[in-house]
């Protein structure tokens, strides 16, 4: 009797997995591939659509899905085991690995106390200025050290302020939401600014080089995209203040208590200077050497330096790095490349273009808006980097200038404002339990409109000037 | 600051050696610049691996970025060399070990093994060596090590020894597995991919061949000869303090009794393991060993027998990185021609010093293989050194066998053979331990190879 219940329970937990298997089986066995698509491409499409269902419904842990994508490529004969393995690792995966490890190394230095003090010194005690300060600093920092690192460092500062402002943070819900969202949205909008802002940017760069679409240097990326970050910061502040209406206009006493807290940490120690110095080295490496050596290699060099100087223990890295996500991105990129090589991506792109072409006349507008809408929508369901890994090969096949389309996709993948799953920073503030999913919708749609409009302006006015 | 320099002096020495070679020493005429740079990276890595001034994963990271920065490859190329089916196989085996432990099967296996050997420590060590050797002839050393590692760890966990006694006991048991697996892997052609590579070379270069049984008849006596000596060496090098493991065994017995009969979950685990074994035997060639390992781990996660959290915490990812990076440098050595240069260079230097006789050729091929096997992986060694050895003249079968056998003598470092890397992943043995026991093992192996070559093989010709 008990074993039946165990089996039934297993079926309940894995129903989406079983559904996916059934879907895959039907597509593989009984549905014949479309005439204008070759068999390998069709199989690649089946694998990727199965993986998408699994990722969204999450009946299995992510690494299991990663393994699924890897071995299905071999089992269905898309490529040999060694070729699949070698398409698994590339600069983007090195970068994701390196940046996850760097985050552990940087956050464990306790630099957040210094950061808090610095921000408060800049902004003063007025609530609106603090929120503006949080947004701007999160945005600027996240361009360089990645949004997950920034959110991990800023969260304690924000939460401490809220707690000092009122004993029960739920009583000052507006203030709490405004502060936390200033961290999350600040980090998210900032992450588009440079290639090192997020794994998704590096994935896009990897696709560019893999598909021979040319390359973009670190500084060029900033020249194209940074104006958008700068436009968005003040408007984000306004949106947050308008949506959440903080209960207190002045945070005098909270700020004073925070300063006392932070001052206990004492003067900067040699270790902390070293940590900052090493990061600056890595940053300079990204700016000047990334074209020759790749962003990922330099990130790994940074991790090596942190380990060699004893600033972080390997054991800590081993425990706190999300190895499953590294596997997932590796396999997602490898199937993405497979989609491109087999022509499956082109086939999908062709379908989208012909179906929407009747609606929208101008071709550049069409490609741009397709990539923005597709990416924006998917990044609210999937994580943003996974979106780029999956959508990248398709949008680069839409036609038009692949670099510009690529930029649009990378930028639009940061538009995951509506849900807590999209961006790491959003997940982090959601995990505090102090903001509700409703809040994401309330502020999110305004942020969505703002971002789409500013992307439009950027692509219509700024990019033609370059 | 001074303390840091003191701690990391071998890192600084390695970097200094690298810098001097890179900037001030011109590369040999017969060697391309890239190959020379790869050799520099190899040398730096070797110094670091032997002295371990920084954690091994950090050494893996420096292998990756040096290949791009001075090796002149693009990041994506290095990424490509970095990951191969073998790495997935290594990753999958480590994950499987976690799954076995999480289901408590390790205890049952350990009890089964102990019930065969009895409670005496030396007999248990011998049992592990023998099991590892016999199994690895059939299913390959990686897998055997991955399965036996948790079994040994269970015994170690239950042992009452603390401090020095525990260190010695763990070293003895773990090396019994690793060296046993290495010793056994030469026994049959299916003991490892390198044996298959050599079979191919015979057909390609020497137009002769050796049957499966012929291989076993020639080589298996050597395996049998080596096993008792290995046990003896391991016990001498890491003498366990306790002569008996009574209390550990009793503890184990209590644990297994408390678990009761095999639960459905454990039964399912066994079924899945058996399926994977069949998969490896029948589809290993077609789909790749690593792919099947991944399928297995996937099934374990789908059935909920093991949680990803346990896997993530239980797998030593640094070892995966290290293994991958040594493979990538091995591939680079081969591709740039550095390996051939090294092999031909040493052969020609030694060959000019010594007369051209059969036994000299044998020594050459053995020495070359041992040296390279400890530098790069055994398969790469055979792939690179094989053609050179076969071109030395003399009986290709004998020289080939000598070279393939010698390529299993990777006892010196944690990365020399996959089995060594896997036991290193437990964190219970230190990198210098490998050198401590390794040189004796190598000496013993070479001697027994000589004995076999002089007294056994002539019976066949």
């Amino acid at each position: 009797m008990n074993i039946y219940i165990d089996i039934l329970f297993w079926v309940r937990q894995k129903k989406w997995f079983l559904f996916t298997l059934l879907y895959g089986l039907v597509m593989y066995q009984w549905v014949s591939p479309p005439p204008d698509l070759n068999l390998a491409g069709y199989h690649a499409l089946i694998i990727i659509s199965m993986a998408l269902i699994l990722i969204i419904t999450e009946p299995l842990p992510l690494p299991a899905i990663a393994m699924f994508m890897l071995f299905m490529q071999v089992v269905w004969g898309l490529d040999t085991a060694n070729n699949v393995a070698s398409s698994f690792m590339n600069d983007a995966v090195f970068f994701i690995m390196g940046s996850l490890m760097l985050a552990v190394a940087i956050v464990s230095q306790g630099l957040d106390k210094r950061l808090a003090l610095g921000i408060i010194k800049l902004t003063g005690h007025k609530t609106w200025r603090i929120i503006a300060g949080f947004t701007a600093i999160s945005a600027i920092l996240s361009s360089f050290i990645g949004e997950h690192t920034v959110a991990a460092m800023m969260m304690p500062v924000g939460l401490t302020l809220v707690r000092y402002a009122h004993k029960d943070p739920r009583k000052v819900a507006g203030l709490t939401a405004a502060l936390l969202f200033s961290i999350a949205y600040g980090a998210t909008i900032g992450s588009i600014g440079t290639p090192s802002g997020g794994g998704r940017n590096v994935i896009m760069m990897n696709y560019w080089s893999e598909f021979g679409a040319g390359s973009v240097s670190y500084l060029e990326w900033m020249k194209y995209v940074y104006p958008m970050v700068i436009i968005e910061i003040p408007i984000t502040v306004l949106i947050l203040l308008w949506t959440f209406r903080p209960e207190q206009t002045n945070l005098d006493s909270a700020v004073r208590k925070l300063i006392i807290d932070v001052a206990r940490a004492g003067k900067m120690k040699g270790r902390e200077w070293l940590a900052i110095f090493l990061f600056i080295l890595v940053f300079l490496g990204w700016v000047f050497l990334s074209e020759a050596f790749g962003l990922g290699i330099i990130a790994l060099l940074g991790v090596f330096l942190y380990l060699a100087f004893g600033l972080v223990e390997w054991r800590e890295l081993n425990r706190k790095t999300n190895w499953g996500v590294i596997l997932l991105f590796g396999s997602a990129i490898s199937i993405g490349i497979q989609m491109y090589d087999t022509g499956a991506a082109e086939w999908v792109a062709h379908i989208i273009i012909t179906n929407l072409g009747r609606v929208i006349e101008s071709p550049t507008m069409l490609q741009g808006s397709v990539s923005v809408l597709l990416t924006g929508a998917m990044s609210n369901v999937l994580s943003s980097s996974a979106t780029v890994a999956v959508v990248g090969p398709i949008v680069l096949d839409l036609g038009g200038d692949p670099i510009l389309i690529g930029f649009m996709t990378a930028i639009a993948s940061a538009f995951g404002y509506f849900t807590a799953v999209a961006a790491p920073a959003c997940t982090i503030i959601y995990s505090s339990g102090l903001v509700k999913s409703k809040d994401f919708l309330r502020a999110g749609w305004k942020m969505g409109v703002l971002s789409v409009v500013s992307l439009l302006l950027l692509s219509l006015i700024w990019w033609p000037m370059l | 600051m001074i303390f840091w320099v003191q701690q990391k002096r071998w890192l600084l020495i390695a970097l200094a050696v690298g810098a001097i070679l890179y900037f001030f020493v011109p590369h040999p005429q017969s060697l391309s610049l890239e190959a020379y740079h790869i050799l520099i990276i190899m040398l730096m890595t070797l110094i670091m691996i032997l002295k371990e001034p920084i954690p091994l994963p950090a050494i893996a990271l420096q292998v990756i970025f040096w290949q791009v920065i001075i090796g002149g490859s693009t990041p994506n190329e290095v990424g490509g060399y970095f990951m191969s089916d073998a790495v997935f196989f290594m990753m999958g085996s480590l994950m499987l070990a976690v799954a076995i432990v999480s289901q408590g099967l390790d205890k049952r296996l350990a009890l089964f093994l102990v019930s065969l050997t009895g409670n005496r420590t030396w007999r248990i060590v011998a049992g592990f060596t023998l099991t590892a050797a016999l199994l690895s002839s059939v299913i390959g050393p990686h897998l055997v090590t991955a399965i036996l590692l948790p079994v040994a760890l269970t015994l170690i966990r239950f042992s009452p020894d603390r401090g020095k006694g525990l260190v010695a006991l763990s070293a003895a048991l773990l090396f019994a597995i690793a060296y046993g697996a290495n010793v056994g892997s030469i026994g049959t052609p299916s003991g490892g991919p390198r044996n298959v590579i050599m079979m191919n070379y015979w057909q390609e270069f020497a137009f002769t061949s050796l049957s499966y049984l012929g291989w076993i008849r020639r080589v298996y006596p050597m395996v049998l000869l080596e096993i008792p000596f290995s046990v003896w060496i391991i016990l001498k090098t890491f003498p366990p303090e306790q002569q008996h493991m009574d209390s550990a065994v009793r503890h184990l017995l209590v644990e297994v009794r408390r678990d009761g009969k095999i639960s459905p979950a454990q039964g399912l685990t066994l079924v899945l393991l058996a399926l994977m074994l069949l998969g490896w035997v029948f589809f290993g060639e077609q789909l790749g060993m690593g792919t099947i390992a991944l399928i297995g781990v996937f099934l374990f996660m789908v059935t909920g027998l093991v949680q990803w959290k346990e896997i993530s915490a239980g797998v030593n990812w640094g070892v995966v990185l290290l293994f991958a990076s040594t493979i990538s440098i091995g591939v680079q050595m081969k591709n740039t021609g550095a390996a051939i240069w090294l092999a031909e260079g040493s052969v020609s230097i030694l060959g000019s010093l010594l007369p051209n006789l059969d036994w000299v050729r044998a020594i050459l091929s053995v020495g070359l293989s041992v040296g390279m096997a400890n530098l790069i992986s055994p398969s790469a060694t055979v792939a690179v050194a094989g053609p050179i050895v076969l071109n030395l003249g003399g009986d290709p079968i004998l020289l080939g066998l000598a070279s393939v056998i010698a390529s299993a003598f990777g006892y010196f470092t944690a990365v020399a053979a996959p089995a060594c890397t896997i036991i290193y992943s437990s964190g219970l043995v230190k990198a210098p331990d490998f050198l401590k026991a390794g040189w004796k093992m190598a000496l013993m192996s070479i001697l027994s190879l000589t004995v076999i070559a002089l007294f056994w093989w002539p019976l066949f010709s």
Partner: protein
Amino acid sequence: MKKKPTKIETKALKFLTAVSSVEYSKPTLKMGSLIASVFDASLGVVYVGEKASEFHGSSVNLTRHNLDNWNIIHPGLEVLEWALKELKKLNPENRDLAKIQFNPDHVYEEDGRVLVILPNEDGSRVELILREGELVNELRKEIQLEGYDLAIIGGSQNKRHLAHSLIQYLPSSIFVLQKFNPRVKYKLLLLVDDSSATSKSVKWGALIAEKLGWPVRTLTVSKTKRFGEGYMGAAATAKKYFDDKGIEVEQFFLTGDPVRTFVEFAADNHFVIMGASTLNPVKQLLFGSKPIKTLEQTDVPILIVR
């Protein structure tokens, strides 16, 4: 009223209460504490939080570690701290409980479960557990791990659609407080039929009635006019049991569709106790069972005894 010392099982019972938040979980906790004291059971309090998207799991963990440095604890631990305070208020006479101090740094983590280590917990018999993931899954794992006898679940969260899964998959008895109003004087309503779980539910009902002084009614429903021997026998046994304990009992025999009759009879001032279904699990999944349907259609507190 003559009283016989009641003995249920010799083994001490273990109850589990699921709490979700400071705002909504107060009645659940109160009832949990009350029922636990009735049965002299130890009480585990579990908080099942939402699991962060796996993509960002490590970033969230990193943030949590960093928050620890700032003395800001996991929101779930905050709820558990509150629950401990509440329990102390509810059981002022329990000295051991009063001594316990909550320390968020003293936690033990394994298998995706965080156990708060409470000093001197021997006499207090309280456990605080933090889990993250899907509710039914986590409760099931917790019950299997610790062998709880009863799971007490509040109705504040949207549990209606979970009713089916809870009853089908939780391996313990289940007590669902849907709209529990502490001020209403409840009547105990025992559903009696020929199933094997009836005798245990009669025992539990008697104990609750005895300790809380609630009036008891038994209800037996038959689909046809004729009441089978098993039904009448079960009702008579129940009557005898209560009489032995000196508890007054009203007995009702109604005809009609069982579930509809239960629901109508229970109205909103009964506290229902019924035995778990003995149907095979596949049939339960497809067609539902009496407890599942009853739970879906009524708002009163229901204790399903397994």
